[in-house]
């Protein structure tokens, strides 16, 4: 089913809702066709494919709002879901903050986001890529004991129609290859990992991903313990991406901002980060993964400058129509979450791009007297969102830097620190950008990061 058919189904459902005497109605229909081949211990152990479609319905009776979601594109089931939404709205107290569903506005499709080869990739092709990845990793050294990872291919499409005349759609293909390599020598394990994400399967380079993960894994055998405390750090693009994904969620969502739980609220127009830091959310930038022209309400996704020369402002916040309606003269920035995603319904950025600098990772290491190189962070979580305090552990290759050189692998470290402090001094930003799902990031050197704990491996 293409976007045209999805749009017809959405329009039809809106008509059904209007026949039930609602004041406004919005229907977003979607189809997700995905396949994933997962491997561990150097063999495929899970191999799945699923096709799911459905409709997300919102109806408004005066200010009473009812929503329903059905994971089916069958006409009868969508009709039932519309009736459920109407029934819910009729008995729900008015939502005084609700102003209106979005009015129609012009939007422009983004070309070249759908690749049939990626969308229709066969299990045999995925198996070939996985085999190449595993074989390449093992070819690097006899110390490699196990290769794990996943290779995803698929596509998604959604269409949005509302009773005010909104009519919009989006479609794209997506693929990702992720690999973790475990090595072992003398009773010590080493870990390395790498990943690639794209809209086009031709961008995936299994040999490169496998080599990077395997080489890091071997280098990380026999890690030493270092004292916890503040260190200069050189962060790979993956490590940087995980920090900014969380900052996007806790800081730049209109919901967090309006609830007073966002650090942005308390730092408006201040030099909160290093002057060299510029971050935007822009689904039309060629370097972002989710190239969606419109959001889950059919509103054109707008570019939002999240951080400008280290400053955040009221214009850094990402809104959907509901949160925009809570503020005077505010319009949706096109950040309502599309129905294809299962995560939280609050508006938030997921096309985050950090502006590159001019340094290479080698130059960052050379510039570091005593510090830590981080390949990746694991299990990042906010400790105090309003102060942007995060915690996470390093993973899959952490190395000690001494006098401008990487010297030894170190045991994984836990940081607990406010990003308002640690991103205040960014002496160097990488010139290359890596696409890491929702965030496209360069490497970064930070003047200090506070490590508060250490593991045993």
């Amino acid at each position: 089913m293409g976007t045209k058919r999805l749009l017809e189904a959405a329009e039809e459902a809106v008509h059904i809702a209007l026949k039930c005497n609602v004041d406004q109605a919005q229907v977003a229909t979607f189809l997700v066709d995905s396949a994933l081949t997962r491997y561990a211990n150097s063999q495929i152990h899970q191999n799945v494919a699923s096709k799911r479609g459905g409709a997300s319905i919102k109806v408004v009776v005066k200010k009473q709002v009812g929503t329903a979601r059905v994971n089916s594109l069958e006409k009868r089931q969508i009709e039932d879901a519309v009736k459920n939404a109407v029934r819910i709205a009729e008995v729900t107290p008015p939502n005084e903050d609700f102003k209106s569903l979005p009015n129609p506005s012009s939007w422009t499709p983004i070309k070249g986001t759908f690749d049939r080869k990626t969308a229709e990739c066969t299990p045999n092709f995925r198996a070939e890529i996985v085999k190449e990845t595993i074989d390449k990793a093992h070819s690097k050294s006899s110390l490699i004991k196990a290769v794990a990872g996943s290779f995803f291919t698929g596509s998604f499409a959604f269409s949005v129609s509302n009773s005010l005349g909104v009519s919009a759609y989006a479609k794209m293909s997506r693929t990702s290859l992720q690999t973790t390599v475990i090595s072992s020598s003398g009773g010590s394990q080493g870990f390395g990992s790498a990943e690639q994400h794209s809209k086009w399967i031709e961008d995936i380079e299994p040999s490169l991903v496998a080599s990077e993960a395997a080489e890091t894994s071997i280098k990380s055998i026999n890690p030493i313990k270092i004292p916890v405390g503040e260190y200069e750090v050189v962060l790979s693009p993956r490590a940087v991406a995980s920090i900014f994904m969380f900052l996007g969620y806790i800081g730049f969502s209109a919901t967090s901002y309006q609830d007073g739980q966002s650090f942005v609220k308390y730092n408006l127009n201040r030099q909160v980060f290093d002057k060299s830091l510029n971050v935007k959310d822009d689904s039309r930038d060629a370097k972002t993964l989710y190239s969606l022209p419109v959001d889950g309400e059919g509103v054109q996704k707008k570019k939002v400058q999240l951080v400008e020369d280290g400053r955040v402002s009221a214009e850094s916040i990402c809104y959907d129509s509901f949160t925009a309606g809570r503020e005077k003269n505010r319009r949706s920035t096109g950040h309502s979450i599309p129905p294809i995603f299962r995560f939280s319904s609050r508006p938030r950025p997921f096309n985050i791009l950090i502006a590159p600098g001019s340094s290479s990772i080698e130059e960052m290491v050379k510039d570091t007297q005593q510090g830590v190189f981080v390949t990746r962070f694991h299990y990042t979580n906010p400790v105090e969102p309003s102060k942007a305090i995060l915690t996470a552990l390093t993973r899959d290759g952490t190395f000690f830097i001494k006098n401008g050189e990487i010297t030894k692998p170190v045991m994984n470290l836990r940081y607990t620190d406010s990003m308002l402090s640690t991103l205040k001094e960014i002496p160097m930003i990488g010139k290359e950008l890596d696409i890491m799902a929702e965030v496209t990031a360069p490497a970064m050197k930070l003047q200090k990061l506070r490590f508060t704990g250490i593991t045993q491996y």
Partner: protein
Amino acid sequence: MSIDLGRKSLEKAVKSGASYADIRIGELIDENLTVKNGIPEETSLSQTKGFGVRVMVTGAWGFAASVDLTGKEVEEVTQKAVAIAKASAQVKRSAIPWKKTAGKKDSFSTQMRKDPFKVPLEEKMEILMDADRALAKQSPHIKVSYSFFRSKQEKKLFMSTEGDEIRQQINWCGGGIMAVAIRNGEVQRRSYPSSFRGNFATSGYEFFQSLKLTEHAKQVGKEVVQLLGAEKCPSTVTDLVITGDQLALQIHESCGHPTELDRALGTEADYAGTSFLTPDSLNKIQYGSKIINIVADATAPHGLGTFKYDDEGTIAKKVYLVKEGMFVGYQSSRETSADLELKESSGGMRADSPLALPLIRMTNINLLPCDWKTEELIEDTRRGILMQTNRSWSIDDKRLNFQFGTEIGWTIQNGSKEKVVRNPTYTGMTPQFWGSCDAVSKDDWMMWGTPNCGKGVPGQIMYVGHGCSTARFRKIRAGLVK
């Protein structure tokens, strides 16, 4: 849910070369109600119908799923699963270890007095509006007030080529309240009965009613305002007393996940990680002190992880993971238990929808009580900090180094609960931490439901339970935030 569709799929799978196949046909209904600042912010009903077919062909797995419940689609999806399994077999080191079991024909439903989906929406909404009003009026510093209700029903039919035909209906529901208070840039929150939308149980609407949300609004409001003026949690090494709502997550992260056998065997290495509880440490490693007894119990009454059969037809059971401090067991599946030559699966395979592949998931991971009373436990503590209700969590990929934050803490001085402290955090290493536990209470032991446990690629969200009570841990590092 049609047995005929199931039979059609299994016949097709066998004809296409499968040595084993199963199909799950399911239907989910999920109702979420949220009132925020007196406004019904979320009133949603989500419905999913579909099926998933798992096949074993030439010793390798294939799985495919669809929402289209027609005979034609069932045949095509089964064929797709077979093709996927054949592709899996191209990158195979060894065949899937598998022991045949006798097929079962049975049915099961969660015991409940009142079906939450038959309770009028207005009634549920009125309880939430009432609780929200009660919370908001406690203080002008309360800037955001929330009340939550959630109810889920899962109907599923499991059939396999070994002759299984098992129908189950699982129902769970629950809710909670939360207040956010703000003063001069200081932001604090307090929840009841637990954070992240409350507490949940396999039960009928009577469980939600028993939470009596409005009655607890006063205490929640009082504590969140107290937190605004409280001192920061001191940075110190001290005795720590943890209440059940926080200990539930501690058990979840530091015992539940590391005792999942798929993690220990390396099959989650690419995402959530592996486990420090490696197979060679089974029955050898001292996980905690002698008073620590932890079970995986899918039969626990009202546990969020309670059912009769898992998603590969294994009957629910209670197995010891830790006995008198010793690591003695894993949560396992038919495949992983055969791989490790264990006697049988622990019955832990579940999928979050018929469209997803079953994985080893926690059932109810319960810390068994000792003889202490909570009051006596605090009276017996000379100097320490009492911490309650989770606020943040993080643990490494082998489940050793953890750090948790709670919503509220109190200093304990000479056996008495004293000052409130804000932003409490603590950290440790799993075996040392559980090794330092010297008291577990009995009187406040209860089941806590966690409806949001994430695992797997593609990601799945599962509902699991934890039975536990207040416990004490000696010499723990607290106060990690500068």
